[in-house]
């Protein structure tokens, strides 16, 4: 049976599933219910000088009939007094000593302010601190959040201030709204950070109301850009995590964030080197109960693969990500269509023809035009249906995958390797670069 207990930069917890700093970790009651549901840790909603929020704070992107493919928010940090948050942290830690409670912090860029909040948080019993250098809306206009994370020197400086006072592990939460996230990661490392959290939300405008011409979320006739998260951002998050994880100058633990909705995404982040994952949107969508399948699904998968602990598979995918120039130019795959399962939708045909490389054909297409009538058994002999199954020209097929991606039937189109007879050769090898 898989063992999910985790030691992340010295922070111990029953499993690697943490709630990310956000609305689900706004108060002690929520965090305690989350721990009851099975969450291994929680990063408290960012604590700082209380702010005032606007009404109407979230908006989302629905896709193809599904709700909340992506979520956007313009909510700021906690709007409750620092004392209240710290008192509740203490209460939670008293009742749940084995679960991780991380205090997310954001105060103005003054050394004393940071020293003060660090000390008070640790006194309340926080197991670790997460510095919010990522929030991209509202707070950044006041010189905090991503305004810090976007300037490596500031990030380094504030991390240093925190480390001067901190006794617990310090995580720096990075913003994706930056040209090269590795610069911010290196700065945090340089400032003494014990670990990184990535990614925070992505600058976004989710959509515009076509009747009022106002973007969402609507606040009295106006809107502002927010931070984007949810399933839609996972590919971006995975890439940025990979960037940090494979940077030789960083090499500190990473808590993966961005579109984790279940155990599969969690496994992906861990395979790219993360020690824990943080979840927000999925919990906002379905509630804390989702952690049950995260634990169950990850455990079953680990059992199947023969992994006993998280460390057994953490980072396994990192060596498999390389620069394009190191890919084998002589590896060739072609599309094959299984005639037994093909349903004849011909989406592969139109995709290949219009969107790719014109190598799928409809050879059986159409006899002479006939008048179509409602078939009435008494009047009409049954007519043979023309085959609608397309054919791949394997000589012309470049193995781009598009037909396989658009095919609605599982395992109908497969991409199969064909022998080229040529030895593996990369662009780097071919050009000597």
């Amino acid at each position, binding site marked *: 049976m898989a063992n999910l207990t985790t030691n992340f930069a010295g922070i111990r917890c029953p499993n690697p599933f943490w709630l990310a700093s956000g609305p689900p970790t706004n108060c002690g009651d929520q965090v305690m219910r989350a721990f009851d549901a099975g969450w291994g840790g929680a990063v408290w909603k960012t604590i700082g000088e209380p702010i005032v929020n606007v009404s109407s704070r979230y908006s989302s992107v629905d896709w193809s*009939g599904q709700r909340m493919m992506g979520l956007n928010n313009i909510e700021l940090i906690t709007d409750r007094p620092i004392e209240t948050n710290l008192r509740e942290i203490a209460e939670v830690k008293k009742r749940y000593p084995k679960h991780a409670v991380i205090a997310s912090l954001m105060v103005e860029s003054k050394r004393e302010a940071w020293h003060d909040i660090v000390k008070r948080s640790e006194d309340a019993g926080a197991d670790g601190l997460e510095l919010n250098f990522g929030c991209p809306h509202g707070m950044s206009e006041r010189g905090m959040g991503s305004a810090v994370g976007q300037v490596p020197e500031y990030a380094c400086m504030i991390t240093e201030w925190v480390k001067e006072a901190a006794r617990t592990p310090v995580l720096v939460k990075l913003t994706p709204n930056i040209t090269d996230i590795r610069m911010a990661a290196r700065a945090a490392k340089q400032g003494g950070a014990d670990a990184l959290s990535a990614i925070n939300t992505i600058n976004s405008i989710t959509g515009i109301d076509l009747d009022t011409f106002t973007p969402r979320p609507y606040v009295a006739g106006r809107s502002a850009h927010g931070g984007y998260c949810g399933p839609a951002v996972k590919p971006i998050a995975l890439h940025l995590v990979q960037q940090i994880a494979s940077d030789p100058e960083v090499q500190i633990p990473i808590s993966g964030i961005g579109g984790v909705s279940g155990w599969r995404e969690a496994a992906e982040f861990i395979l790219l080197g993360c020690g824990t994952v943080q979840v927000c949107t999925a919990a906002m969508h379905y509630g804390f109960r989702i952690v049950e399948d995260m634990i169950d699904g990850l455990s079953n998968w680990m059992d199947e693969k023969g992994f006993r602990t998280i460390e057994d598979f953490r980072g396994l995918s990192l060596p498999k990500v390389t620069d394009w120039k190191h890919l084998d130019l002589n590896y060739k795959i072609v599309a094959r269509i299984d005639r037994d399962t093909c349903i004849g*939708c011909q989406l592969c045909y139109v995709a290949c023809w219009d969107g790719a490389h014109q190598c799928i054909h409809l050879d059986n297409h159409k006899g002479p035009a006939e008048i179509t009538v*409602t078939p009435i058994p*008494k009047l009409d002999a049954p007519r043979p249906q023309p085959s609608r199954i397309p054919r791949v020209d394997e000589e012309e097929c470049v193995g781009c995958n598009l037909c396989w991606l658009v095919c609605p039937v599982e395992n109908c189109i497969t991409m199969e390797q064909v022998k080229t007879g040529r030895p593996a050769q990369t662009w780097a090898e071919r050009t000597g670069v």
Partner: protein
Amino acid sequence: MTPHTLERFPDLHPPLDRQSALAEANRCLYCFDAPCTAACPTHIDVPRFIKKIASGNLRGSAQTILDANILGLSCSRVCPVDVLCEGSCVMHRYNKKPIEIALLQRYAMEHHHSRPPRPLTPDPRPLRVACIGGGPASLSCAAELARHGTKAVVFDNRPHPGGLNTYGVAEYKLRPADALREVELIRAMGVEFRQAEVGTAVSLKDLESQFDFIFIGVGLGAMERLGIPGEHLPGVIDALRFIERYKTQPDFQIGRTVIVIGGGNTAIDSANAAVRLGAADVHLFYRRTEKQMPAFPFEYDHSKVEGVRFHWLAQPVAILAEDGRASAVRFVETRLGNGAPERIPGTEYDVACDMVIPALGQTRAADLFPVESKKGIILVDRPTGRTSNPRYYAGGDCVNGGREVVDAVADGKRAAQAILSSSPRLRDSASEAGPTHG
């Protein structure tokens, strides 16, 4: 319809609301060269109109349907989609439920018909076409002509146009009000409707002198007779008259025990309606078996659920009377041979009833017109609807022998397109030679 009768005929299928329409529309794969479009006799671009529902472009969705089929609303209700678009959906090959194309089409059409019609402004053509008969074929022909700036006048002898759409479709499928909404849409396109019987009130000679072309869309004739003693008795009413009466006469009284004779879709519609109207027992007799029944299987299945009782291998030989009204039908058992079912002598039996509804199909009588016909069916070139007489085109049941609404719409549209494409040359020769008889 009285409210009382309306209550007896609730919609067979409830409509989709916005959210379920969106979900269903998103389920459509958007096949390339889609088989549903090929299977539709009017070739509605089904994936296109469905994706327009998904994108929130309901106006465009409805227009996509109407461009191919002006009776998109009634077709969405009466089409046997199981053997047409939905029957050809690739989802069947995937062991999944086919896309609910009919309900999606109805959703788009309801949206369209709930809004004021958009004015059409085609370039007018100096061409006049008379459409004889007010049913789906003529409506479709006239609408297609009007879309291209051609004046069309529809002649129908009944108080309301629409033909069987208005008077002959089971009430739980299509109500006259919906059929007439489509008539109004076509009227708004510039088509003129005149209530007049061609052949009596208006002569063909008049039409030929006033119009460049004449489209024949008169459908079929009265229902076939049983040809047995007693069929003129009170209490015997053929299926089409029965359907028309219950749809138009609020005080129509159904019998207590009703016998329907025949195995087609109209027989089934009548039997179902008899149940809905309050008959205690409804029996359907057919001289062959379940397997040979021309009705669509889904109609038969539905009818069994309604409570109609089916009797096979029984042929009526007489309708018996009591107090001058039909009181029973005498049947003889049959057995199947190579040709018509064979009567088995000495197997006669009587079934008591107080209403008999023969549903044997419609007669074919096309001899009114100066065009070639065969066995009462007008002969045409199928892709164009052109008859032996170059000024006459024809479509619908009177040429296809009795099919579905959508087939008539397709016929009418094809004829209109042929008229439009052939008209310049013909008109020139017609104006030189003057009106001629074929």
